[in-house]
């Protein structure tokens, strides 16, 4: 459960939403358990899809989310970098989280996002270029 909520947090910057997405993912798993033989992958895909859907909806009416953490919970340095990751376009952010947090390969990320591996490569490249641009003085 904690893993699912944490993944959701990295994708949404919002604990409440992360919990909701985890809950919905587990509900889906419960409903489809007979057909699902890879529960963790199922949960991961569901959480990523829910976060992406939500993000696209929110993007129309508000600025990018900021992680709302008290000082001390997350170091300033981590906060700084995460604040640069959070506004990335939804698919780029997903690729960064799946690659650097989940440790997935390009093929696995492609399977999770339902896109070709080449697309994952270019999304990662664009995201890293954008991040470097943001943090360079």
């Amino acid at each position, binding site marked *: 459960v904690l893993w699912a*909520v944490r993944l959701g947090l990295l994708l949404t910057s919002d604990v409440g939403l*992360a*919990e909701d997405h985890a809950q919905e993912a587990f509900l889906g798993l419960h409903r489809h358990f007979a057909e699902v033989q890879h529960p963790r992958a199922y949960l991961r895909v569901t959480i990523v899809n829910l976060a992406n859907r939500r993000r696209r909806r929110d993007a129309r009416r508000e600025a990018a989310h900021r992680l709302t953490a008290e000082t001390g919970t997350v170091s300033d*340095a981590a906060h700084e970098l995460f604040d640069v990751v959070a506004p990335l376009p939804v698919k780029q952010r997903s690729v960064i989280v799946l690659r650097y947090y989940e440790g997935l390969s390009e093929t696995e990320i492609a399977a999770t996002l339902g896109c070709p591996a080449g697309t994952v490569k270019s999304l990662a490249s664009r995201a890293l270029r954008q991040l470097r641009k943001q943090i*360079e003085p």
Partner: protein
Amino acid sequence: MSFDAETLDERLGDVLREVADSISLATDPVVGLRPRAGGRPASRHTVLTLVAAVAAALVVTGVWADSRRSAPRVDVSAGLSPASTVPPQPKTKGLVAARLDLPSRTIAAGSSMVGRVVVDNDTRHALHVGGCGSLFAVALASDTYHPDVLWRLCLQPFTIPTGQSSYPVTIEARYLWCSANASQAVLRACRASGQPPALPPGNYQARLYQSSTIVATPPSVPVRVTRQRSTP
């Protein structure tokens, strides 16, 4: 910025883990986080209730697909050669260490072997831990394949006695999961037998997985998966 573009690649993983670890089920996940403006109250209890229900359903129906793992038995000798034993990790402050004993460093794709996890409990008292079905599992992983080892969600009491005890584990040279529905893009299709397909030949690491953190993770053991044996 307190870091530069050069170190970005290295820092990203650390930062994401730090942010993710800022929430914990040990405390209310909202603690340490400012409430969202106009946000809903946290629904952690709903999540937990749901997960408990899912877990109960899985246990009752017995549909969780990792029944291949054996239940732990203490001091079981599986007739294994110590040749594949990896020296235990330096003892942690809890004085509980583990090592993996495998009967062989090679395995044919699609086949399995029985190894054991040997635990040295030098704490002078038995350890009472919770698990479900078994405490340990060993799976083959590689740079490109990271097995999703999952555990049944139930709580059974286990006791790790003082001294040395061992726990049989089955190592399979096949994927852990598959889909009966081939249209599911995230999963490999099951074989006609219903089993997951064999791992491709190559170099892997046998890694210890625990239902909860019981011992310091011992070094993984290199295992080579060879071509599948042809069936006559």
